[in-house]
């Protein structure tokens, strides 16, 4: 027997609704069978608690006297977007403090506000006839605001690809700290508890649906940005009244050397209307799989090392190419459960009713990549092709001469067929000269672990290498490791001085 949402809500009001958290549903359906599960379960509550960068809030401060039309606005030194009406602003979670950098940002302002802490507002204006005031500084708490509307364009990712790093350097990413040589794997998402994994066809999740948001009642606005459910990566945009939220389910975070983000707690209640909803909420961690991506490749399409399920990720280690690698979650499963259980409690108490979407979300679309109209410079566009090199068997003396004559600090070392085997710098050669060892050859002093680039690599990626390894030149090699050029910090400087940068 199918159930209507009206019947479920009636049971909620009467206090007889049966509510279970999504993690319990697979076992329950197995035990009772689909028919009895449909009869006995009215609502399944879901939950997730993780970093959701695409979050923020519209704030209204009320008018000052004399009034000001704030053009630029800062809250505790974090700039909020003021390109709205006179005393409205949007504080974005990832915006960083002008004084404290990534140690404090928009997310921290939001956490301070919901914690009832005092926040300093600074605003400036050029002054108009109706709004003569030019600047304002005042201290506020969330109580003093007329509205604090959380408005998050992209939350509640259905699932998220896991991350590892096969380079020999630690990487600091939005997926956390990735140790070198696949030293660890980070993942995010609550698996079987995740709201969208329990209704991947968006039958009951859509615009207008009431949800749990950061400890308060919120609402789904519609699909989120980058919504890509065709591939299993649906998202939601959500809103809620920040004045009713607390810091239990809204936490600022800093991803080391990446930046500020906001941990958001979201729970969506799913009405068990028919057999299809029983089946979709019986999803297990084993059924939800993602790619394990190599963040060592700084491109949009990172290579996938393998497919992995949340069940495997949650065991704490998985195997990659025969090696066991430890996994870490960035989102909190304990908190996700707390979200689902809190929502369960609200519904059981009769204080939270369900609604079907007033605006459906398309379950078939895919997000498109950015359309780029300007040429992105590649290494080949700016590299130096007229490179002086040296062979590995030459003497130190001749290396010194070549360096002097060529007015350069780097000499790529080639073997007979033009393959790059090392690099020597002025420093290596001077050191060798000082040591005065007899018959030293270039190959005795050269660096053999050469950091290099390819003609096709994007200039920004090459620039990142120079900075990370603190070096001033990169040999450019083709895919046979034959040297085709040299890219120096000076070439990059020229580029950024001219054409591609405005």
């Amino acid at each position, binding site marked *: 027997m199918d159930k209507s949402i009206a019947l479920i809500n009636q049971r909620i009001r009467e206090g007889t609704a049966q509510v279970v958290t999504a993690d319990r549903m697979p076992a329950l359906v197995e035990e009772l069978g689909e028919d009895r599960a449909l009869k006995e379960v009215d609502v399944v509550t879901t939950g997730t608690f993780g*970093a959701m960068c695409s979050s923020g809030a519209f704030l209204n401060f009320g008018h000052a006297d004399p009034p000001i039309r704030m053009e630029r606005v800062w809250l505790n030194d974090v700039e909020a977007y003021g390109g709205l009406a006179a005393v409205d602003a949007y504080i974005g979670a990832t915006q960083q403090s002008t004084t404290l950098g990534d140690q404090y940002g928009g997310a921290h302002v939001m956490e301070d506000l919901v914690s009832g802490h005092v926040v300093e507002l600074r605003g400036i204006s050029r002054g108009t006839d109706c709004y003569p005031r030019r600047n304002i500084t005042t201290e506020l708490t969330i109580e003093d605001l007329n509205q604090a509307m959380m408005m998050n364009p992209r939350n509640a990712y259905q699932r998220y690809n896991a991350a590892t790093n096969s380079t020999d350097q630690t990487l600091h990413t939005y997926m956390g700290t990735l140790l070198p040589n696949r030293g660890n794997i*980070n993942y995010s998402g609550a698996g079987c508890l995740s709201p969208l994994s329990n209704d991947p066809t968006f039958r009951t999740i859509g615009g207008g649906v009431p949800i749990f948001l950061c400890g308060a009642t919120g609402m789904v606005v519609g699909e989120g940005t980058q919504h890509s459910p065709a591939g299993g990566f649906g998202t939601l945009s959500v809103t809620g009244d920040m004045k009713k939220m607390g810091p239990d389910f809204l936490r600022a975070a800093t991803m*080391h050397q990446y930046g500020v983000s906001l941990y958001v707690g979201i729970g969506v209640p799913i009405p068990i209307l028919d057999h299809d909803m029983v089946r979709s909420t019986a999803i297990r961690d084993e059924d939800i799989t993602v790619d394990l991506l190599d963040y060592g490749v700084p491109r949009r399409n990172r290579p996938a090392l393998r497919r992995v399920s949340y069940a495997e990720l949650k065991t704490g280690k998985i195997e990659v190419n025969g090696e066991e690698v430890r996994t870490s979650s960035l989102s909190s499963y304990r908190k996700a459960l707390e979200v689902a259980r809190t929502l369960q409690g609200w519904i059981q108490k009769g204080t939270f009713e369900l609604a079907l979407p007033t605006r459906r979300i398309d379950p078939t679309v895919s997000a498109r990549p950015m359309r780029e109209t300007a040429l992105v410079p590649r290494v080949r566009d700016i590299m130096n092709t007229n490179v002086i090199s040296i062979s590995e068997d030459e003497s130190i003396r001749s290396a010194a001469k070549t360096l002097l004559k060529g007015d350069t600090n780097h000499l790529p070392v080639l073997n007979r067929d033009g393959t790059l085997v090392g690099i020597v710098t002025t420093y290596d050669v001077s050191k060798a000269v000082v040591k005065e060892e007899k018959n030293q050859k270039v190959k005795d002093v050269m660096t053999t672990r050469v950091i290099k680039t390819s003609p096709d690599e994007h200039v920004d990626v090459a620039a990142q290498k120079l900075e990370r390894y603190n070096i001033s030149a990169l040999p450019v090699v083709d895919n046979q490791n034959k040297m085709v050029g040299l890219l120096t910090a000076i070439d990059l400087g020229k580029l950024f001085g001219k054409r591609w940068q405005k």
Partner: protein
Amino acid sequence: MKLLLTFSKKKNREPVIAQVVKETGVLISVERAHIDSTSGEVLIDVPDTDAPRICALMEAKGITVRILEHGISRNQDECVDCGACVSICPKEVFYLDAEHQVHLRDERCVLCGKCIPACPHRALSQTL
């Protein structure tokens, strides 16, 4: 008991740890060492009963000794039990229990500091 030894290379040219092992017969396990051209920092683990003796001897040899009572410490108010620290720690100090809560095996910690920046919630710190 964990002892943090700091020594300057200029003063200590001798193999101090080896000497102390020889003189006392106590087996010292070196858990972490960071040595550069001018100074060094070595974290050792010794049986609690031998610690006073070892401290005294090390100090007599010109080494600064600090007793480390605790490993890394965690602020429970900031921690959200994500577990980001779990795979970062080389000593497997952190683990999740059946309730998905993160716990610390404090005694394993060698205070390498790697987990501190990796915690998104700034919940970990080194109290000295």
